[in-house]
């Protein structure tokens, strides 16, 4: 079996990493542009072909209506949830969106898991190119505060990308794993993770035991709609207002220019992490130039409310862990947005200690995912991760009140059993509504799923069905029911409130058969390149032998030409061509091979050892 990679499927960037067994350290895999950061952007060409990553990001400027970014915000959400996002992001929501959002890219329509799958495919191909072997298993990270639907959507994306998702790991927990490996931390650790679109806080306890190190999450909290994106939108809203006032032009009317401006503002945001001011000179579609000096002081004033918003979850997580900020032994900063000096200062003030920033905040989550992938590949040897569920799980009871079954911050896997019966004679079904959230009323919680338990027609109260709700190690709900009269398991057909059914994922997999072929071609190419490398190596070694001097010049030239042709083919992407060039090289070297073999036989006769030849 091939190796398992760790993937950070981020709002802005995604990364893939693996455990380097030689150094015992996780490493990020660079893509074709040399950086391990793959922009989480997907674009559909006019001919229907799809690109993801840097190539797609470039098209954000030229073909914004065929290109999508920050799709993570839509994962596992319903149309009503994203009303605010639609105002701020150029998401084109298709009218056929029901329990799953559908976005329009050019003339095609995709669900968020499908879009995410294109990003995952891109990362998968990076890893396959890097290892020169197929990669089919992954650990994917999710924000700790992601609910069941958001997690399930992420898992669906993996499946659609041809990856077996062995585990979803919470991003702050992954970061703690990477840091733990990095510097042997012990005690209580707070991980503050402000990413592109999501905010998480996790409080962990790191314990050394006879068996090894235990990473136990005590509590987690967060906001799945708070991140660098919000800072960008804030800057964009300010700039737009500025431009309307001074140039009587609404930049929103020019999608290409809007994306260009957004790009410049993000660059300015980055620059303000190191300098006190940054000039913006932006040529407007009208021909005039919008000029503004952005100062760090005003920038911090604008974003202060966003930073404040993150502190409420921090306090709640600490309260759940029954700990005071002062008792934290370590504080770790994760996510690109923690580069903002104001964020660092707030966190430092709150905990009263300098946070760790030694590991690259963009990479640390992917590195942790690689550590967990390694643990799953090898079995628990000396590291054990005990994570928690971020939200309470309950069922709706009489009057729309939620009965909590599994409280938030329970260590996962976690389960609860409930006994159900009928209220009416000859009733043949019991309706259940499963929810996630902390509020008392079902209407205020997140609906996860509805389903009906089938029961035999009996007098009221006679039927006895035991339902077992299990949250697995990825934080995803499983439901099993058992008829206590017969002891038989009852199948439960769960209709997710916001997500794809198994049947829908299956259908999408079938529809994406052409992508599967693309994967196959990719694998063939990798194999052909591997063999090509081996042949080139053997040929070049052979040519350095004494015996090679006996080759006629024309034949030697033919070999050189064939070598060049094979190298060119290997740089391309057509595996059939690589195979053809390999055959040609083999033919061209037939005489050389014979010469070498004769030489070996001769040497053996002379009593030399083979490896001296």
């Amino acid at each position, binding site marked *: 079996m091939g190796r398992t990679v760790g993937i950070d499927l981020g709002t802005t960037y995604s990364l893939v990493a693996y455990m380097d067994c030689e150094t015992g350290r996780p490493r990020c895999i660079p893509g074709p542009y040399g950086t391990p950061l793959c922009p989480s952007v997907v674009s559909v060409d006019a001919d229907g072909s799809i690109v993801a990553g840097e190539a797609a990001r470039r098209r954000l400027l030229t073909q914004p209506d065929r290109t999508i970014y920050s799709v993570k915000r839509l994962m596992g959400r319903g149309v009503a949830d994203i009303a605010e996002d639609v105002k701020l992001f150029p998401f084109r929501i298709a009218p056929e969106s029901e329990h799953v959002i559908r976005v329009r890219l050019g003339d095609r329509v995709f669900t968020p898991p499908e879009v995410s799958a294109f990003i995952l495919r891109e990362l998968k191909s990076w890893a396959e190119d890097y290892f020169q072997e197929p990669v089919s298993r992954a650990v994917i990270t999710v924000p700790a505060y992601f609910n069941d639907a958001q997690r399930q959507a992420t898992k669906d994306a993996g499946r659609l990308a041809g990856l077996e998702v062995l585990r979803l790991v919470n991003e702050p927990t992954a970061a703690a794993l990477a840091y733990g490996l990095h510097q042997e931390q012990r005690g209580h650790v707070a991980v503050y993770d402000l990413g592109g679109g999501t905010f998480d806080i996790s409080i962990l306890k790191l314990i050394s035991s006879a068996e090894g190190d235990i990473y136990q999450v005590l509590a987690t909290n967060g906001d799945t709609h708070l991140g660098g994106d919000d800072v960008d939108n804030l800057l964009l809203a300010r700039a737009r207002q500025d431009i309307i006032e001074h140039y009587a032009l609404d930049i929103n009317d020019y999608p290409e220019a809007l994306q260009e401006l957004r790009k410049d503002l993000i660059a300015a945001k980055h620059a303000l992490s190191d300098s006190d001011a940054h000039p913006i000179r932006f040529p407007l579609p009208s021909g005039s130039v919008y000029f503004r000096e952005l100062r760090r002081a005003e920038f911090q004033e604008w974003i202060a409310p966003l930073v404040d918003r993150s502190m409420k979850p921090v306090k709640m997580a600490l309260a759940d862990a029954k700990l005071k900020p002062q008792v934290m032994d370590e504080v770790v900063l994760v996510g690109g947005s923690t580069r903002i000096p104001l964020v660092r200062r707030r966190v430092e003030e709150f905990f009263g200690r300098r946070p760790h920033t030694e590991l690259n905040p963009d990479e640390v989550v992917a590195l942790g995912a690689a550590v967990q992938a390694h643990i799953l590949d090898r079995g*628990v040897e000396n590291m*054990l991760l005990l994570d928690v569920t971020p939200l309470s799980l309950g069922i709706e009871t009489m009057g729309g009140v939620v009965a909590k079954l599994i409280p938030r911050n329970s260590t996962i896997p976690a389960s609860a059993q409930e006994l159900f019966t009928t209220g009416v004679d000859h009733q043949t079904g019991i309706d259940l509504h499963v929810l996630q959230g902390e509020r008392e009323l079902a209407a205020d919680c997140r609906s996860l799923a509805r389903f009906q338990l089938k029961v035999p027609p009996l007098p009221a109260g006679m039927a006895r069905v035991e339902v077992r709700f*299990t949250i697995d190690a990825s934080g995803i709900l499983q439901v099993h029911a058992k008829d206590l009269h017969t002891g038989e398991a009852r199948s439960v057909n769960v209709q997710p409130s916001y997500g794809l059914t198994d049947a829908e994922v299956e259908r999408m997999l079938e529809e994406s058969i052409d992508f599967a072929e693309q994967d196959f071609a990719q694998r063939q190419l990798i194999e052909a390149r591997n063999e090509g490398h081996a042949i080139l190596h053997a040929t070049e070694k052979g040519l350095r032998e004494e015996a090679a001097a006996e080759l006629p010049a024309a034949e030697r030239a033919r070999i050189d030409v064939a070598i060049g042709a094979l190298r060119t083919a290997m740089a391309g992407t057509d595996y059939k061509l690589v195979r053809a060039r390999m055959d040609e090289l083999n033919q061209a070297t037939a005489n050389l091979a014979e010469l070498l073999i004769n030489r070996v036989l001769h040497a053996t006769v002379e009593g030399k050892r083979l490896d001296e030849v």
Partner: protein
Amino acid sequence: MPETNSTTGFALTCWSCNVRTDDGQFCKGCGKIQPAPAGSDYFALLGLLPKLAIDPAALEQRFHQLSWKLHPDNFVRSGDFERSLSLDRSSQLNDAYRTLREPVSRVEYLLRRRGVRKEGATKQQAPPELLEEVFALNESLDELRSARRNGGSRLVDLRQKLEAAQQNFETRLAEVDAKLETMFSAWDSALDRGADESEQQELMARMNEILNRRSYIRNLVANVQHELAEENA
């Protein structure tokens, strides 16, 4: 399906190698993970007698030892059946630890197991000796609500009164918790002595009464906290 003992639900033979097995987590013959005994008790899952005074550090250590063996991380490469067994066993272990870690949920669990405490059927009557204080408190709460509605001037005054009441009830809560702890030792020594069922029932009935009082006072405190928080908001 493996053969099971109808009274204990323990698997008698290993599902994989058919060797006779005990109620351990793993088969002594082939080492494969075994199904959790049906209806197994949280105390037993953690290898404990149903005693109530538990050293939290020792409990945590035991929890971690079992987690190393049962966690699904160990079974990613196993077959579907073993994976589901690991999911069952490790979720039960986590449920057991979560329940037994806190003294109140621990004793509630014991009483429910023994049929002394019924889910959702706990009495919410004011303990007689608290009646007067409860009346006074409810009055203050009503006054606060109406004062807030009418923008009354007595808000600060009422607020102080409520804060004092809250302090008072929190002290009561601490008293109840102390009483519960004494009962824990009484229960444990009764078990050690091999006390008979009627003595056990009597101890459990007393603990149940204390729990009812505790939940009543706790609700009061929560109500006051809620009102004071509204006030701040």
